[in-house]
């Protein structure tokens, strides 16, 4: 039977092919929009399929809808796919962002066709990463997703784009260097297999776990913008074109969190217990540090980039807690941050497209000029600072409560580690206040107050495609915020076996 | 075999090799260097004879002294300009050269001497019977220690070098 998961690679590949054949901008847009819509439909259908499969699967099954084809026999590499609740949600998130991103870049010029080509390649990488359960293919798709960024930023970006694009690419590649080492190490020390499930079953040799864990966590941590490896993110986001910022902050940074979880912690629980505290410190710093740094920035994109550092730090922080609550909080935070940052960047891009500046000091009173965009911005801001009813709140609260939950950590240094984790949980919670500070500061300066620049009065409000794109995101944010147990419905049975595995293999 | 005689012969040959080698790389005039090279090659041939490899010695003289040296002389004549063509060496370059040469010699000497210091075999304790007949058989045989394949292969090399040389040297 045909596995639905392959659709997520096949559809973008076909889109890529179709884009090659297009002759004019109209066709390009039509093809891109069709592809993105198909992906979204497929993602929604996948949720349904997944729930159906989960209902009949025996309890404790790690992955569903699995399928495996031998690819590279000598290294035991398979084209293995499979999903659990986490990846289903990530796929859904990616589909939404790709969909909205396509509309957000509707008027992208010049070289529209090339733009969408790279954009689609990026989405291949993202989807491929989330459906894979084979380390090699995961890594491959991960890198596929990285490199189009260079051109997307370099060609279509703005500002100091060459520097940013290069910095971003090189730093992420640096991360993936560590990752590759770790993947190969895991391969050789877990019975020469690349399959996640088999590795989990075999376990990674204990004496190697610590080193490999650090490599894997740092590798994905770079993408997850973990302090002190986050510095690519502000510059990169600031220079990237709208949809790329959306996709990058919305989805690519999630690859980091997902990877940390799926590879570093899940496969090497022993090391995660032993060394988790180091990264807890780093991610804890990220959370607060990013928020503080965002307070003094004046470029809208920089503010959001630092805010992303803070929020993504929270994701990494949560998965280090190694209990079900915090981890599902992490997944929700990924979803929430993905949607909300995408919305932010979409709106910033639209505002920038009109005012040609991103400096908050040069703008003001936009509420009177472009009410739609402004309201959107406020909603994104409120989601970011954790207004209940929007996605951010649910995610952050789950994380905070999860990090307070009683979890046994096997660690020689810290004992059961609860006090340590609680202390850091409290530190990270302060971010909700700092977030409020910088969000309200921007909202106040940018949207409220008198109109700063009289030339801005002639600007128009959002066009239909912009409205479409932002409204979709807002809806998604609100749905997740109001009905968080929908996400839990998908996640529910996935964490059980994972946490159990982490705890069993911890000693 | 006369041990003393052989020793004397050895000494003469060794001295000649050393002296002419040094001279050929130090003499300022290029033509003289070539000449010293000729003497070195002759000394080498003499060494081969001394060791009992008459065929090799003959080839050495025929190919090197007869062929290559002539080429050298021709090319020197072709390329040298009239007037003072003695070259002067800068001291920096000399230092570099000396460092390399001395270091190389030291390393090789140490390596060889440390490895072969216990070797007591002398020229006289071993017999050497290299006949042209055996050489011919080895050159066209396919057994172990026979060299048909290299012999064929080097013919291709020589052909290639001829083609290459001709093409390069051609005026156009």
């Amino acid at each position, binding site marked *: 039977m045909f596995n639905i998961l392959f659709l997520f690679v096949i559809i973008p590949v076909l889109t890529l092919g179709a884009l090659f054949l297009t002759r004019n901008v109209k066709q390009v847009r039509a093809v891109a929009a069709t592809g993105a819509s198909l992906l979204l439909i497929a993602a929604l259908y996948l949720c349904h399929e997944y729930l159906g499969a989960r209902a009949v699967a025996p309890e404790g099954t790690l992955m569903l809808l699995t399928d495996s084809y031998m690819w590279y026999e000598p290294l035991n590499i398979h084209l293995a796919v499979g999903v659990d609740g986490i990846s289903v949600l990530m796929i859904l998130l990616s589909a939404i962002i790709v969909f909205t991103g396509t509309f957000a870049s509707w008027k992208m010029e010049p070289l529209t066709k090339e733009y969408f080509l790279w954009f689609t390649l990026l989405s291949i990488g993202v989807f491929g990463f989330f459906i894979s359960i084979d380390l090699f293919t995961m890594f491959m798709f991960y890198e596929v997703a990285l490199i189009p960024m260079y051109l997307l930023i370099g060609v279509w970006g703005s500002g100091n784009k060459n520097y940013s694009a290069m910095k971003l690419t090189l730093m992420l590649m640096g991360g993936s260097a560590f990752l590759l080492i770790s993947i190969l190490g895991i391969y050789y020390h877990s019975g020469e297999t690349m399959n996640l499930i088999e590795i989990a079953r075999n376990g990674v040799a204990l004496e190697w776990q610590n080193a490999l864990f650090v490599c894997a966590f740092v590798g994905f941590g770079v993408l997850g913008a973990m302090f002190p490896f986050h510095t690519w993110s502000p510059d990169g986001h600031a220079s990237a074109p709208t949809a790329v910022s959306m996709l990058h902050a919305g989805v690519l940074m999630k690859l980091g969190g997902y990877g940390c979880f799926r590879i570093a912690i899940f496969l090497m629980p022993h090391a995660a217990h032993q060394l988790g505290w180091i990264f807890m410190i780093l991610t804890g710093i990220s959370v607060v540090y990013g928020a503080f740094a965002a307070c003094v920035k004046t470029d809208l994109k920089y503010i959001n980039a630092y805010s992303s550092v803070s929020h993504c730090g929270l994701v990494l922080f949560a998965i280090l807690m190694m209990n079900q609550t915090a981890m599902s909080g992490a997944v929700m935070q990924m979803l929430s941050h993905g949607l909300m940052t995408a919305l932010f960047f979409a709106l910033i891009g639209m505002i920038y497209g009109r005012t040609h500046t991103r400096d908050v000091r040069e703008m003001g009173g936009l509420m009177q000029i472009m009410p739609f965009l402004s309201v959107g911005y406020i909603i994104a801001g409120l989601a970011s600072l954790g207004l209940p009813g929007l996605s951010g709140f649910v995610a952050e609260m789950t994380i905070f409560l999860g990090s307070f939950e009683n979890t046994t950590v096997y660690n020689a240094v810290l004992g059961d580690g609860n006090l340590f984790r609680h202390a850091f949980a409290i530190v990270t919670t302060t971010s909700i206040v700092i977030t409020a500070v910088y969000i309200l500061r921007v909202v106040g300066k940018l949207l409220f107050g008198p109109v700063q620049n009289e030339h801005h009065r002639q600007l128009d409000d959002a066009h239909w495609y912009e409205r479409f794109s932002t409204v979709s995101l807002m809806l998604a944010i609100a749905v997740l915020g109001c009905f968080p147990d929908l996400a839990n419905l998908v996640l529910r049975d996935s964490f059980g076996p994972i946490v159990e595995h982490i705890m069993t293999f911890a000693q | 075999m006369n041990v003393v005689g052989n020793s004397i012969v*050895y000494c003469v040959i060794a001295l000649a*090799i*050393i002296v002419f080698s040094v001279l050929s790389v130090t003499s300022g005039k290029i033509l003289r260097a070539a000449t010293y090279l000729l003497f070195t090659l002759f000394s080498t041939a003499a060494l081969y004879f001394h060791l009992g490899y008459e065929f090799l010695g003959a080839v050495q003289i025929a190919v090197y002294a007869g062929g290559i040296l002539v080429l050298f002389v021709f090319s020197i004549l072709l390329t040298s300009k009239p007037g003072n063509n003695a070259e002067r060496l800068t001291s920096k370059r000399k230092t570099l050269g000396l460092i390399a040469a001395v270091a190389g010699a030291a390393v090789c000497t140490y390596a060889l001497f440390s490895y072969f210091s216990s070797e007591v075999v002398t020229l006289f304790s071993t017999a050497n019977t290299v006949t042209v007949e055996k050489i011919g058989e080895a050159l066209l045989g396919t057994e172990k220690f026979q060299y048909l394949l290299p012999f064929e292969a080097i013919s291709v*090399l020589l052909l290639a*070098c001829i083609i290459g040389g001709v093409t390069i040297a051609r005026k156009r």
Partner: protein
Amino acid sequence: MDLTLLYYLVPSIIMFACGVYGFITRKNLIAILISLELMLNSIDINFVVFNRFLFPGQMEGMFFALFAIAIAAAETALAIAIVINIFRVAKSVDVQNLTKMKF
């Protein structure tokens, strides 16, 4: 005087060192070529000496020397062709002029 192996290796090593020295110091391309010949020649001596003293049962070393002479000849021929060529183009055989491409 026991003429052991090492006695015969000494001149060869010196010859090689001379070759290296000459290669590095000489300016004239042909002089460099001469140095190269010295080096190749010393290797031949090595082979022959080893063969004669240590492994007289076969003729491996001698044959290597034999083929090496042929190779050296081919090399020299080609090298001289190229030297003449460069002389035509650059009107000089000074190696110090051959540094147009660097860094």
